[in-house]
């Protein structure tokens, strides 16, 4: 009986109820969208980092830090036999050295990165380094680096570096290709060479800065194994930050939505005090009265969930076909260049819906609690509040 009465009262609210449901539903859609977008960003960036750089982890010296270029040369190691014997689809040896590029007699600091050209573990567009037949030192740069240095395919440019013993060397290198990397970290300031070429140039036979592997090979003397989560720490942290920011945004929206529900319930209580007084006079307990009002509020929450599905499913379906264009961030170090698609996590969605429902129910309970305490005789003459 209470459920029927609550439903009738809810329907009688008309436009007010519809607006409340619509606002709550949109809030839910926005919440799911924001959380799934952050998931999509993290998923895409992790995928890009893994396929171009991180794979299943790195073996390197514990002190090596890619953000300290002046120390790169100090923390290299001779690739141990355990890693050396692995097949080319399971490991990729990388040597990183500091260098200076002099395009048109300007000076640009560069990271000279040599990679094993036989490897197939990482997806890098460096095939032309392997097939090069000329006499120069062949090099590949990314499109971003090409733009920064004003270099194009076929250009010759002076590269300066130090060998293992500290002697300075400089030679002209040939830019045989400018390529587009999905991971901007492999693009900005990086000059790609074959590993053998770089080892010969720097007199570092068999030395590597790190070895990327498909999976953990266990403990190797003097080397540390860095799992992908450690190597992608900054991206994970960034996503965590974004998730926190979107959560704050969602809470603000939910509070506004709850205020709207609370406001409607307060108005209901004020307008329907005679009705409440009559029901109490006829024998309804305050608990039953509260229940009825809370149920009315709960219909808003349930309606919002249903409407969120009705609005959300077509919207999300459309969005997945286009994705979010983030080409304006192409100059940043975010390792995503493609449009971002949503990644839905059922657990997160259920959590989101449950939290929203509970918040709305709570917002409708507060005014209902007040109406259950009114004096029926005063309420009947409209002076309960």
């Amino acid at each position, binding site marked *: 009986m209470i459920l029927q009465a609550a439903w009738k009262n809810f329907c009688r609210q008309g436009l007010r109820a519809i607006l409340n449901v619509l606002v709550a539903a949109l809030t839910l859609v926005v919440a799911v969208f924001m959380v799934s977008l952050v998931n999509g960003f993290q998923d895409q960036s992790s995928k890009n980092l893994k396929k171009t750089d991180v794979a299943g982890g790195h073996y390197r010296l514990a002190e090596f830090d890619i953000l300290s270029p*002046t*120390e790169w*040369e*100090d923390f290299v190691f001779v690739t141990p036999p355990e890693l050396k014997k692995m097949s080319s689809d399971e490991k990729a040896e990388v040597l990183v050295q*500091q260098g*200076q590029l*002099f395009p*048109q*007699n*300007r*000076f640009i600091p560069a990271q000279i990165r040599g990679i094993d050209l036989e490897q197939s573990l990482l997806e890098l567009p460096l095939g032309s380094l392997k097939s090069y037949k000329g006499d120069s030192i062949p090099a590949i740069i990314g499109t971003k680096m090409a733009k920064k240095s004003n270099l194009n395919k076929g250009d010759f440019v*002076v590269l*300066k570096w*130090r*060998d293992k*013993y*500290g*002697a*300075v*060397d*400089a*030679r002209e290198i040939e830019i045989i290709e400018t390529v587009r990397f999905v991971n901007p970290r492999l693009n900005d300031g990086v000059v790609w060479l074959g590993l053998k070429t770089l080892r010969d140039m720097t007199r570092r036979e068999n030395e590597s800065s790190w070895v990327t592997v498909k999976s953990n090979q266990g403990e190797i003397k003097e080397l540390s194994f860095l799992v992908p989560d450690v190597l992608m720490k900054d991206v994970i942290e960034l996503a965590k930050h974004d998730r926190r920011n979107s959560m704050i945004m969602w809470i603000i929206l939910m509070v506004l939505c709850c205020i709207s529900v609370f406001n409607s319930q307060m108005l209901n209580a004020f307008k329907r005090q005679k009705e409440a007084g009559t029901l109490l006079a006829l024998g309804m307990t305050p608990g039953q009265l509260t229940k009825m009002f809370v149920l009315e509020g709960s219909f808003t929450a349930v309606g919002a969930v249903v409407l969120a599905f009705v609005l959300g499913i077509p919207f999300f379906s459309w969005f997945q076909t286009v994705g979010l264009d983030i080409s304006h961030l192409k100059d940043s170090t975010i390792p995503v260049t493609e449009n971002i698609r949503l990644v839905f996590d059922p657990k997160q969605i259920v959590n989101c819906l449950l939290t929203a429902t509970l918040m709305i129910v709570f917002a409708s309970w507060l005014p209902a609690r007040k109406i259950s305490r009114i004096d029926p005789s005063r309420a009947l003459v409209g002076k309960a509040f």
Partner: protein
Amino acid sequence: MNRKGALRVPQDKLRAERKMNMLSNHKIRSVVVTIFLGISFFSFQNSYAQEIDPWKLLKAVDDNLWSNTKIISGRLSVDNGRRVRTMSVDTWMEGLENSYSFYKSPAREKGTQMLKIQNKLWLFTPRTDRKILIAGHLLRQSMMGSDLSYEDMLEDRKMSLSYDVILEKWEDVDGVRAAVLYLTAKDKEITYQSRRVWVEAKEQVVLKEERYAKSGKLLKRVTFEEYKDYSGRLFPKRMIFRDMLKNDTKTIYHFDEIQFDKDIPKKYFRQSILKR
């Protein structure tokens, strides 16, 4: 025509023949003299070249440039192609290992100090009130935006000890005859694996120096200008450093005042001097 008449040689012809003989004798003599003078000149040149021991010459150059102590008051002008920045700096040097520099101007650099002890360099900036140790690879960075690295500035090896030297040729440098010495590093750890030095043999001073990469590519050119006698030692008034891989940049070290072999208190080469 009679027989006698046929045998007689006309007088004017004889005269002409005699004249011709005299002329050819004179020519021969001139050629001989020229050849003799030429041979003498070249043999003089060769003997001069042979007399020069390139290593001794390089050592003499080192001995002239290096002293037990040196106090220099100078200016460092850094021209990056767009603007010129001039810093005035006083430097106290002890042997090859220790040096201390104090920057006096401009206001931005005033109070900046550099202390080098052995192969370590500390930089003190009054704005941060901190001393920073510049060691290892940091020494290879550009010093105050100039064409010199800290390493170049703090070079502490005598060329005669670090390089094998040969006399390559003789060349004119701004009208001065100079021996061109080609230096090859004895040690694979030496930054510049080869150098070319133009030395005025009589005064034993460097006029020009070029530093090369291991591949032989020219990296830096240093010219030494206006040698002046500072209490018996010839020292340039200016050293101009050019990074040959860059366009339109140069760094000029002007030596305004130099004192050799003066006593320098020990406090100049202690870390405690690095303060405001």
